[in-house]
């Protein structure tokens, strides 16, 4: 496996590792973006209005139990005749990945919005916030931690599942697995698996980092270095002790 990964011949060309990683990422990120565009607004809507809660339990769980390979082949059979060229294969792959990514994002967005302190929302409305401002200034920032954790688990699933695109002769790191199996080249298969795992870990950490940057410390209960309005820094010992009573 080590030999495979460090062989320069595998790092160039149309089926070199960089190309495969690139393809893998493109499928993954497009799928994630589409899933987010569907699931985030829907989750917010259901969370805020309380309408369609049954969808969360029913649809989300049903989608989770989806056999991805089976669905992929079914979709190829249905869709590819209608499209010339590679599109007939790309579209089914994306659909499968999107269907996988929607449930975690949808349920977490919904749960995030539901979990926003009702008293904070009531206070905002009582102070004269209009509905849209309550959403943008209170409900969304407060539901961000859960929402982002949904995106994080969706991306993990997408990256690991995007290997199936290779089943239907598309690129991505799945190629190493499929081709390796076909050629009984186990080092190639292991290299593929390791690369997928590394990619997933990398993006997981990236999203964790982004989460830390965009989520208010007031929500994660992280202690920040407290400063006086004058700019003077308070020693962390006093700053982080939540006062009793």
């Amino acid at each position: 496996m080590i030999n495979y990964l460090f062989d320069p011949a595998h790092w160039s060309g149309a089926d070199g590792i960089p190309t495969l990683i690139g393809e893998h990422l493109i499928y993954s990120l497009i799928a994630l973006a589409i899933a987010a565009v569907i699931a985030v607004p829907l989750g917010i809507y259901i969370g805020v209005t309380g309408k369609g809660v049954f969808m969360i339990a029913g649809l989300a769980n049903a989608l989770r139990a989806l056999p991805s390979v089976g669905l992929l082949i079914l979709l190829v059979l249905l869709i590819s005749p209608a499209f010339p060229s590679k599109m007939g294969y790309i579209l089914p792959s994306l659909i499968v990945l999107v269907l996988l990514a929607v449930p975690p994002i949808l349920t977490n967005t919904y749960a995030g919005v539901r979990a926003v302190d009702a008293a904070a929302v009531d206070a905002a409305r009582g102070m004269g916030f209009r509905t849209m401002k309550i959403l943008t200034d209170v409900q969304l920032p407060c539901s961000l931690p859960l929402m982002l954790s949904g995106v994080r688990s969706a991306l993990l699933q997408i990256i690991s599942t995007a290997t199936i695109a290779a089943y239907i002769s598309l690129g991505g790191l799945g190629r190493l697995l499929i081709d390796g199996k076909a050629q009984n080249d186990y080092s190639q298969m292991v290299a593929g698996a390791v690369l997928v795992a590394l990619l997933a870990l990398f993006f997981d950490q990236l999203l964790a980092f982004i989460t830390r940057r965009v989520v208010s410390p007031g929500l994660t209960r992280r202690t920040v270095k407290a400063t006086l309005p004058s700019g003077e820094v308070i020693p962390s010992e006093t700053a982080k002790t939540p006062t009793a009573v």
Partner: protein
Amino acid sequence: MIRFESITKAYPDGTVAVNGLDLEAPTGKLTILVGPSGCGKTTSLRMINRLIEPTSGTIYLDDQPTSGMDAALLRRRIGYVIQHAGLFPHRTIVDNIATMPLLLGESRQKARHRALELMERVGLPETFANRYPWQLSGGQQQRVGVARALASDPAFMLMDEPFSAVDPVVRAQLQEEFLRLQREIGKTIIMVTHDIDEALKLGDQVAVMRVGGKLAQMATPSELLTSPADEFVADFVGRDRGYRSLGFTAAAGSVAVGEEWTVQLGASAAEAQAKATGAWVLVVDAGRRPLGWAQPEQVHGELRKEHLNLSGTSAQASGTMRQLLDAALSSPSRRGVVVNEHGELLGTVTATDVVKAIEAEPHLETAR
């Protein structure tokens, strides 16, 4: 002034939360809505800033009907304080308090400045400015809630059980501070509570509501205690209303204060014995502030701190009959300690003296 004119709130399922309510909350006064749960007090409050729309009737804010106003703009004119404070968890304390000024279009700098001013006003140290709500106790969060409502300097305030989510000691402290604050700022306030003691303590006038959303009685606290309109009000106000109504009767001058001999810590047993009246002698500090009572017969050598009995309360001469009577009843010598406004001893009273003064005054004058 906030005025309810035959306000009714009925829900589609037939429940009537508020039924034909007429009520007037005068400018600069604290009006309290009190009643058992289900009496429609919170519903009434939330109809003022139109978080709930009345089924019929009109609410006037300084003689303007609220029904024609833009609800969001109406709410921005009214401070709003709720039970669990409802602070924004993702914003710092100073940003929470600056919410209203920012909403009304103040610059960030001005809003922050105003917020810091208010923190001081409600007794929050400046070091809290950049903390987040979770780092504060319930009582501190409620102070932030009050500061946030005051930040836009609204003429009106609505408070929904503002002090009921904190423990009794903190609650009493918040109530005292709030009374002091209201004396300075004189807002037109309507507050909802289920706690009759809180209502009697804080209210300039109290509206007692009964289940079904009807007004049972609207009166000053002392009127409620001395002449409840009906059995429901009498029951709700409580069993010891006779004693509690003394809390609204000024003591000033009507009770004779007797002279009391005193000793200081360090006095000898013999001196304490000589100064004692009956079994007890009153101990004061060098500034004649009462420290407690002592029994000379238990003192060997000199009088020390551990000889003091601290059970007695002390009453200010300018206080109420209730404080005087309590001072007498709680004192181990049965002589109640009376002090001036600086806490210096004036003398003592007995329960008999206080009761005589009460009996001599059939027409009770109220302290407020």
